[in-house]
């Protein structure tokens, strides 16, 4: 019986002109473009410098800032208000004002002030930009100190090491999580439209009068998404390897096994939405509503640890959170199955609850 139902599902899928193409094209687009877009690495901060000092020292500071690679000098303004104006026009993000007695202050008093004004509308950029700038300035003073023969005294020696991602590439961090995002979008939103579209076309009545048991019907609906998910995942892994040279440091078999579990979980959720909806429009909006919240609360874009406690409590009920953690651990840290057992258990609970719910919520009687 399952065989015929599956045949029907695949025929329906393949006859659609749009869907098979999308299953191939979407993961390619997402994997090719999004790692470049979704980056918290701040580069090219536009800076406007007001140099009232015009000395060798101030010129050296400006050179140091522009050669750091983080800042792009937009203009050297004459007055502070010019610099603020270029912030207002959106040309500059940060204005730096060097006072007219910088060199004098340094040589005579030993202390000088420097004004940094950042456009903090984009909070992230403002705070990171100023901290970069502050650390460049402190490097600069150390340099001058060393030249002046003052050797910074011994004390605590700090040695930072960055593990797992030595080049500190943000793309590497995003790629495994973006795979989860594509799987969620395709294997979550397509099933949510599936049963309800049968309802809208009226073919659900024909299924309802057959002796097909509810569980078999739901499994026949889930299995195609499992294969679709497999294709999507394979394409993503291939693109990650060919374009970004990223291969999982853990076992690829583990990734596939856990993906099976996740795809069933998220398509089960889609089917639940589909069962409860009357029109495709409704199903789609409910699903979109949940996908946005699930994505935002999953740690995909922003760290979960930074959320307030109540929000962290909500993320416990987010299957994406666990799968993203699993994918990042296996892909980047080489975690084995044993290391990620807690997340795997949670995911398994979601799988049981959601698929059972999907079977129960499908009713033959309207």
């Amino acid at each position, binding site marked *: 019986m399952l065989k015929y139902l599956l045949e029907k599902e695949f025929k329906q899928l393949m006859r659609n002109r749009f869907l098979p193409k999308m299953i191939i094209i979407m993961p390619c687009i997402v994997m090719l473009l999004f790692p470049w877009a979704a980056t918290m690495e701040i580069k090219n901060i536009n800076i406007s410098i007001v140099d009232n000092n015009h000395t060798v020292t101030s010129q050296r500071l400006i050179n140091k800032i522009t050669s750091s690679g983080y800042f792009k000098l937009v203009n050297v303004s004459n007055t502070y208000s010019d610099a603020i104006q270029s912030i207002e026009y*959106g040309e500059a993000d940060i204005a730096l004002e060097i006072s007219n007695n910088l060199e004098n202050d340094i040589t005579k008093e030993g*202390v*000088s002030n420097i004004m940094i004004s950042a456009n903090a509308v984009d909070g992230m950029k403002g705070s990171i930009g100023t901290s970069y700038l502050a650390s460049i300035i402190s490097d600069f003073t150390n340099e001058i100190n060393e030249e002046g023969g003052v050797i910074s005294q011994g004390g605590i020696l700090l040695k930072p*090491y960055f*593990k797992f991602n030595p080049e500190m590439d943000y793309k590497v961090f995003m790629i495994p999580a973006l795979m989860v995002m594509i799987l969620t979008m395709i294997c979550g939103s397509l099933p949510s439209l599936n049963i309800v579209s049968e309802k809208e076309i009226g073919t659900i009545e024909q299924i309802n009068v057959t002796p097909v048991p509810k569980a078999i019907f739901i499994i026949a609906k889930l299995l195609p998404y499992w294969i679709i998910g497999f294709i999507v995942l394979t394409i993503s892994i291939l693109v990650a390897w060919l374009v970004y040279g990223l291969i999982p440091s853990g076992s690829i078999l583990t990734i596939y096994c856990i993906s099976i579990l996740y795809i069933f979980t998220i398509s089960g959720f889609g089917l639940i939405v589909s069962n409860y909806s009357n*029109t495709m429009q409704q199903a789609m909006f409910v699903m979109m509503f949940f996908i946005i919240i699930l994505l935002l609360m999953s740690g995909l874009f922003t760290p979960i640890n930074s959320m307030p406690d109540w929000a962290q409590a909500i993320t416990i009920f987010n299957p994406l959170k666990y799968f993203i953690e699993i994918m990042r651990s296996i892909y980047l840290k080489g*975690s084995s199955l044993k290391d990620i057992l807690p997340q795997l258990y949670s995911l398994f609970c979601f799988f049981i609850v959601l698929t059972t719910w999907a079977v129960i919520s499908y009713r033959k009687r309207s």
Partner: protein
Amino acid sequence: MNQFSSFVRKEFCHILRDKRTLLILLVMPVVEIILFGFAISTDVRNIRLGILDPSNDVATRSIIQDMDASKYFTVNLVLHTPEEIEEAFRKNKIDMVIVFEDKFYERVVHNGSASVQLLADGTNPNTAKIGVGYATNIIMAYQMRLSQKSAFSGASSATIRIVPNIKMLYNPQMKAAYTFVPGVMGMILMLICSVMTSIAIVREKERGTMEVLLVSPVKPISIILSKTVPYLVISIVNMITIFLLSIFVLKVPVSGSMAWLIIVSILFIFVSLSLGMLISSIVKTQVAAMLFSGIGMMLPGMLLSGLMFPIENMPVLLQWISYMVPAKWYITAVKCIMIQGLDISYCLTELYVLLGMAVLFIFISLKRFKYRLE
């Protein structure tokens, strides 16, 4: 005109009868504003710290205490051997490990040098870098205290210092809501207008009721326009909800002109509605319309509009693509007027681009609209 209004009434009936969709349409902005305003933050806080401290003396205990007391770190795990470090990282229990030398205090005081290793989980380069920065500051502050106390700070008087005075313009408290409110507005209005309109039109095609409408004496153009009116109303309701929420709940003031803000928003609503019309003239099925407008609008809206990730960091190709995202122009304009409180003359480019997009989309979708069924 009477015909037109009865068509509009018909559309309202469609929407009002579907209580669940209507509920989502009205609740979505509220939930998103609350999530973005209170839950989501790009700050780095509560970095989970592992400690490997073979010396366990005055100095290391005091540093650990300082770390734990700061809002940036929570001490999560005390390790005993270096072998445990790798495992703790793999099990995802910690984000950073701080490894002290043995006889730490003695070395600092007598030898004048002792080393601390900061091992950070570099999978997230952002948290790692910022975490190392915070830890460095805390340890340096401790060292400063120590050197002042034991008065071997002979050299420090000769060193020079440059003190940066930092001023955060427009958003002095660095509230994340200031960044997100314009973004959420752009995303919600875009989703509701373009997705809903395109689906509503395509549904009539798919169900075959479009034929019934086309044989009525109403001009085809009014059929399409009447479909957009209810969504225009809903979008305006949403716009007002978002404004009220952000002003009274998130306490984000409107520093610029409210009138211009509303004009720009309504212009953006028109762009989105016409985009919805355009999509509906291209696709044939609701699934396609949904994937096209839903995923095709939602993803670029979230990623390429400057809502979360600064556009300037992206490669040039993506920057060009972002110029085609209407939400990007709208968000820039809203930031300009609402947060920075600037005059409209500062965001004329954005205004013209949105206007141009609206005209272009309406023109193409009218051209492409088929009066006859195939």
